[in-house]
């Protein structure tokens, strides 16, 4: 039992009304708990007049629900509580306004004989503290959610997973608790804002099912965020289909989505009207099926990423300014994560390209080494063989001449024939050695002409850039392989394309096109250059013919020789001042 000899406030009535004005004080008799006296603050807290309260018993007051806004006080504190000096906090509803929180403390006061003389009840308005506390709790909760969210985003660079985490974080019961969330991402290729993925029930029935299932699983936010399954993409959901196909061109002033992205501000839309007074376009309202929602921009310092749209379509909860602020924090995390994953994807692509070219380089290196080894042995053998061949020609040649001068019956004739046949034998050995040492040099292998073309264009990239030449390709994806020496065909396209570049001089177009024609392939190399004068046209393939100030005049001769060696043909069409087109036909098998 807590006992107090004196309560200073009560002992000095004057300050009771002044400096402790925030505390209501009431004195009760310990038997019937009748109100003996009370200060004006107590009356204010009770929202009652002195007449309604003074002299009335505790029980009586507790029953006056209708007349007293605060009858709860009398019901919460029982007689036992009052006598034992209880401390309690209660909340009093105040209609439209926020509830008032009261901290009630009773102080039984004993007389000299130890008997309780009266009970003093002190009521303190702690609403503000309560509000701070709940605000603090909310902020801590929000911070935890934001932490979980950003941790989940940092775990992955997979764009689909990032989108999943964003949407789940916004809609999860342990997250921001929105009913639905939609993501629209900006596509630099189309220059449009495009509907990508969404999450949420597509009707009330589904809402019941989803939330029923989730509440049974008792998942934490972290469980939920980690539940991403790449085999079940969000984009397959019914609700994603609802926004797929939505495309908003950049600069569309009527679109609140586009405005949110370009102005980098959020909009809170209530009943079709945004918080800046603008009316939302009907097409978007139809897509969402709901006129109350919030639009949050997704962006990083360098670029706009898209927008996030959230609503409470099922439970119709209003969206508070606090929630929008929190959404903006979420959106910031999500934006960096989306940008990161996009950069990562880019990088992956580049790394892959590098790996491919590195592998090609290694293969080439390998081949070069092999060729080098072979050619060292081959060169020595060839050198010796060639040195032998010249004297052999003389020996054999003169022996043949001698033979013609010796009569058939002369036994010397047989001797000379031995020289001739032995020279022939040596010649065959020489030819075999030379054949072996050159056998590997001309290749005939299944060759992808597209690969050859792209390799050649790579080799000429500098020239193409320097002359500001535009290269178009129209390549037949079903083009069959041909049997060829790829190195020789690089020479073919190199010669044709370098001619085209020189014919264009500056700023024109070269078109390389391929197609399958029956059992052969047709390759066309066309330029918008100066063209070839008619009188020169039938001489361009002959050796040493050239129109260039420097050049051997052998480029097209080489081209023709290679193509004919592969069983193909080449022809040309040209118009002076307009351009030239070469047609190459090659057998495909």
């Amino acid at each position, binding site marked *: 039992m807590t006992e107090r000899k004196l309560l200073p406030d009560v002992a000095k009535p004057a300050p009771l009304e002044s400096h402790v004005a925030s505390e209501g004080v009431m004195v009760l008799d310990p038997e019937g708990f009748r109100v003996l006296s009370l200060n004006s603050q107590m009356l204010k807290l009770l929202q009652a007049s002195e007449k309604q309260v003074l002299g009335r018993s505790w029980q009586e007051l507790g029953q006056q629900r209708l007349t007293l806004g605060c009858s709860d006080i009398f019901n919460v504190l029982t007689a036992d509580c009052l006598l034992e000096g209880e401390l309690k906090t209660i909340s009093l509803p105040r209609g439209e306004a926020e509830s008032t929180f009261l901290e009630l403390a009773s102080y039984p006061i004993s007389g000299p004989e130890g008997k309780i003389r009266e009970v003093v009840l002190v009521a303190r308005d702690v609403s503000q503290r309560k509000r701070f506390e709940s605000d603090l709790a909310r902020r801590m909760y929000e911070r935890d959610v934001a932490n979980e969210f950003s941790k989940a985003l940092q775990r992955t660079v997979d764009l689909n997973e990032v989108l999943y985490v964003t949407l789940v974080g916004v809609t999860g019961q342990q997250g921001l608790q929105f009913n639905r969330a939609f993501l629209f991402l900006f596509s630099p290729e189309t220059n449009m804002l495009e509907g990508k993925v969404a999450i949420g029930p597509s009707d009330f029935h589904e809402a019941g099912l989803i939330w029923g299932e989730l509440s049974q699983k008792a998942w934490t936010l972290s469980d939920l965020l980690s539940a991403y399954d790449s085999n079940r993409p969000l984009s397959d959901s019914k609700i994603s289909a609802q926004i797929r196909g939505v495309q908003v061109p950049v600069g569309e002033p009527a679109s609140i989505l586009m405005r949110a992205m370009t102005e980098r501000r959020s909009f809170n839309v209530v009943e079709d009207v945004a918080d800046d007074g603008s009316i939302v376009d009907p097409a978007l309202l139809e897509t969402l099926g709901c006129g109350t929602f919030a639009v949050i921009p997704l962006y990083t310092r360098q670029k706009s990423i898209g927008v996030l749209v959230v609503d409470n379509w099922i439970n119709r909860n209003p969206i508070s300014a606090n929630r929008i602020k929190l959404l903006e924090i979420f959106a910031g995390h999500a934006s960096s994560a989306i940008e990161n994953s996009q950069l990562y994807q880019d990088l992956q692509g580049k790394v892959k390209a590098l790996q491919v070219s590195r592998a090609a380089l290694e293969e080439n290196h390998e081949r070069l080494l092999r060729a080098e080894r072979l050619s060292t042995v081959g060169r020595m053998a060839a050198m010796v063989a060639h040195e032998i061949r010249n004297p052999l020609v003389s020996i054999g*040649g003169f022996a043949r001449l001698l033979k013609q001068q010796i009569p058939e019956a002369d036994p010397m004739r047989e001797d000379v024939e031995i020289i001739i046949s032995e020279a022939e034998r040596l010649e065959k050995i020489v030819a075999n050695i030379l054949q072996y040492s050159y056998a590997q040099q001309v290749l005939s292998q299944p060759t992808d002409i597209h690969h050859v073309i792209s390799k050649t264009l790579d080799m000429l990239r500098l020239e193409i850039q320097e002359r500001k030449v535009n290269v178009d390709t129209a390549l037949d994806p079903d083009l069959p392989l041909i049997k060829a020496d790829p190195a020789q065909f690089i020479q073919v396209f190199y010669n044709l394309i370098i001619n085209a570049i020189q014919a264009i001089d500056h700023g024109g177009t070269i078109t390389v096109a391929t197609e399958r024609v029956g059992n052969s392939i047709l390759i066309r190399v066309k330029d918008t250059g100066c063209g070839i004068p008619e009188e020169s046209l039938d001489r361009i393939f002959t050796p040493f013919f050239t129109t260039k100030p420097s050049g*051997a005049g052998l480029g097209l*001769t080489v081209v023709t020789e290679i193509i004919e060696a592969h069983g193909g043909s080449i022809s040309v069409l040209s118009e002076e001042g307009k351009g030239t087109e070469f047609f190459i036909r090659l057998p495909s098998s």
Partner: protein
Amino acid sequence: MIGKPIRILIADDDKNIRRLYEKEFRQAGYEVLLAEKGSEAVEKVRNENPDLVILDIRMPGMDGIEALGRILAIKNNIPVILNTAYTSYQNNFMSWAADAYVIKSPDLEPLRAKVREILVKKGLLPA
């Protein structure tokens, strides 16, 4: 042979081969000019008006490939046969400007046949 004899210019740095070819082609009824260097061959094309040239490739100084280019620059319709111990120049696109490429052999019949074939094609010999 009809009218004036056909002149063949043979360029080879090997003395024995020059002697062999000279005998061989004289016997076949041609008039033979000889050159032991590429530059000499170019000079003789300019001054002595041969009907056909047989060029060795490996020669000191100006080689047969370079001589081929110069000869064609002087007289671009003159038939030229490259005659060499080397097969490798067949892949050298420069040699594609020649009318024929014959590997040296003790059996001169293939070379003789090639000369004849070209001369017939050019209308200098009856078919």
